[in-house]
């Protein structure tokens, strides 16, 4: 079974976000990690590989630094990596999905995995769009995945419960927390990662031009969330305090 995994490099979950003088998100000094949902996807791919004697290719789009994420996946056990560096000023989910779909269409694959969303922009669109472009079924937010011959049995989270979906392969599946517990790369794995193939592609290598992937969406403005106000303790006997709290929620916070 040949599995392709999309991995994105994102800000560390504990990163302090600031804006630069152009009003854009300032990447300086922020430590970068593999998008945690993508890490679940990598782990799942490796488990499938181990069961089926398969092959795992990890694909990332980003600057040269995104190699860190690919090396991590290789160290965990992936077989090869593809880094696409489009060098575009503006991108959106359409751009990303178009490029990724083109890259994947040049490969052999039975299954495409990814995180259900990236923790930075949180759009949750890329995997779905890739599936659409490639004409493949997509199952989102999967917490359990079984592969049986040419079909995948995926358990996904839905409002108030879970749903089991069967799809024919190839398909696109996105990972939700709970799918698995990702392994740590071993020290030997890290040493071997350097020797594994990493293909580096520019937009032109995929036969695409910048005009073909011009974003459909433009960000008008970035702003930071307003700082959290001081908490308030409502004193008094439980019954009185509860009544006071309800009044505050209604009149001051205006949330109920």
């Amino acid at each position, binding site marked *: 079974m040949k599995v392709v995994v999309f991995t994105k490099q994102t800000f560390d979950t504990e990163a302090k976000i600031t804006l630069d003088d152009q009003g854009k998100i300032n990447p300086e000094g922020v430590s970068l990690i593999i998008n945690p949902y993508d890490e679940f996807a990598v782990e799942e791919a490796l488990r499938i590989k181990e069961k089926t004697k398969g092959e795992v290719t990890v694909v990332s789009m980003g600057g040269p630094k995104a190699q860190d994420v690919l*090396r*991590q996946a290789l160290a965990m056990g992936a077989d090869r990596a593809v880094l696409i560096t489009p060098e575009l000023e503006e991108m959106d989910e359409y751009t990303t999905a178009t490029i990724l779909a083109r890259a994947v269409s040049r490969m052999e694959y039975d299954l495409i995995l990814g995180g259900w969303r990236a923790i930075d922009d949180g759009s949750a669109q890329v995997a779905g769009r890739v599936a659409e472009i490639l004409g493949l079924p997509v199952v989102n937010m999967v917490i359990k995945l079984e592969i049986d011959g040419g079909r995948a049995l995926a358990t996904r989270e839905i409002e108030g419960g879970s749903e089991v979906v069967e799809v024919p392969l190839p398909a696109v599946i996105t990972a939700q927390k709970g799918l698995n517990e990702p392994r*740590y790369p071993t*020290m030997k794995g890290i040493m071997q*990662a350097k020797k594994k193939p990493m293909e580096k592609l520019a937009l032109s290598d995929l036969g695409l031009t910048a005009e073909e992937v011009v974003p459909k969406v433009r960000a008008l403005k970035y702003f930071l969330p307003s700082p959290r106000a001081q908490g308030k303790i409502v004193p008094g006997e439980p019954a009185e305090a509860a009544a006071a709290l309800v009044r505050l929620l209604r009149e001051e916070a205006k949330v109920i």
Partner: protein
Amino acid sequence: MDFTIPEEIMDMKRTLRNFVDNEVEKYSQQIEDEDKIPQHLIDKAKEMGLFGMSIPEEYGGLGLSMLERCLLLEELGRANMSFTTYIGAHTGIGTTGIVELGSEEIKRKYLPAMASGEKLGAFALTEPDAGSDATSIKTTAVLKGDRWILNGRKHFITNAPEADIFTVIAVTDREKGARGGFTAFVVEKNFPGFYIGTIERKMGLRGSHTAEVIFENCEVPAENVLGEVGRGYSSALKILSKGRVALAARCVGACDKLLELSVRYAQQRIQFGKPIASFQAIQWMLAEMATDTEAARSLTYRVAWMVDQGLPVIKEGPMVKLFASEALGRVADKAVQIHGGMGYMKDFPVERFYRDARITRIYEGTNEIQRMIIANRLLKKFEI
């Protein structure tokens, strides 16, 4: 001169930091409360290959240079110190003797299982009457046919209750004493006549166990001699001197962690309407902690590099152990001070670090002994 850390080692450091800060840290309080490291943490460390840090690749280890090892131990040093000690005593004094002095046969026999962590190593030199003065050990070994018969008692042996393979220093010729009369042996825990005695109750390092090791007509096959018969004292010194820079690297990691905790706390804690980090008294402490940490780190890297170049580190080895362990003492003390009353509470990691840090000035040769060695070298060098 180039201080750039290779990408591959950076990847390892990143992985280890993630493991230590996010995984080990979660269980730190539990380790403290139960005096036991959860098995799954040890298993993860094994899977990652950490037990093979000091073992050459041909025997299943990672084949790292001393500098590379120190760069990794630095990350481990951020963890609960008992966790670090468990691994550090194995990769340091627990395996060094076999790696450095073992015959090909001994290495093939023991190292692969030690590299994977399946078998844990320990080092037994100290006895009730022989601490700083290791020349006065009393444990004896007498050759009978094809076996050595060991009798005696070691104490304060780290990892003894869990370890499988012990490097033991014993007297083989009382007349000659330390000069030609000591020998190093590889002793397995299941050899007849081998016993573990009392497990000590300690000030800190809860989760790491230190115990007596007792030999009662313990039978050790003749081929389990490590190095040459009669060269055991210099073997012991060799094992300990290699361990010193590695211990220093662990101290640097602990300093780093304490500094980080302190800088964070100082910015969060408000007194007199401002973060205490705005007070110069606190800032000076932070600045001194950071400087101590950096100085210890620089010396560690340099001495590790010297080891890798095969340069003698007879005085530099003791220097780095001395400086890094005392830097950690100062840093831990300031960390507690910056945390105020909270620093005295078991709910905060600094309290544990403060107790755990204390041992680094005592074991693997007290700091007085380190100073003595350094001074001896100086006096010899500039003899008039």
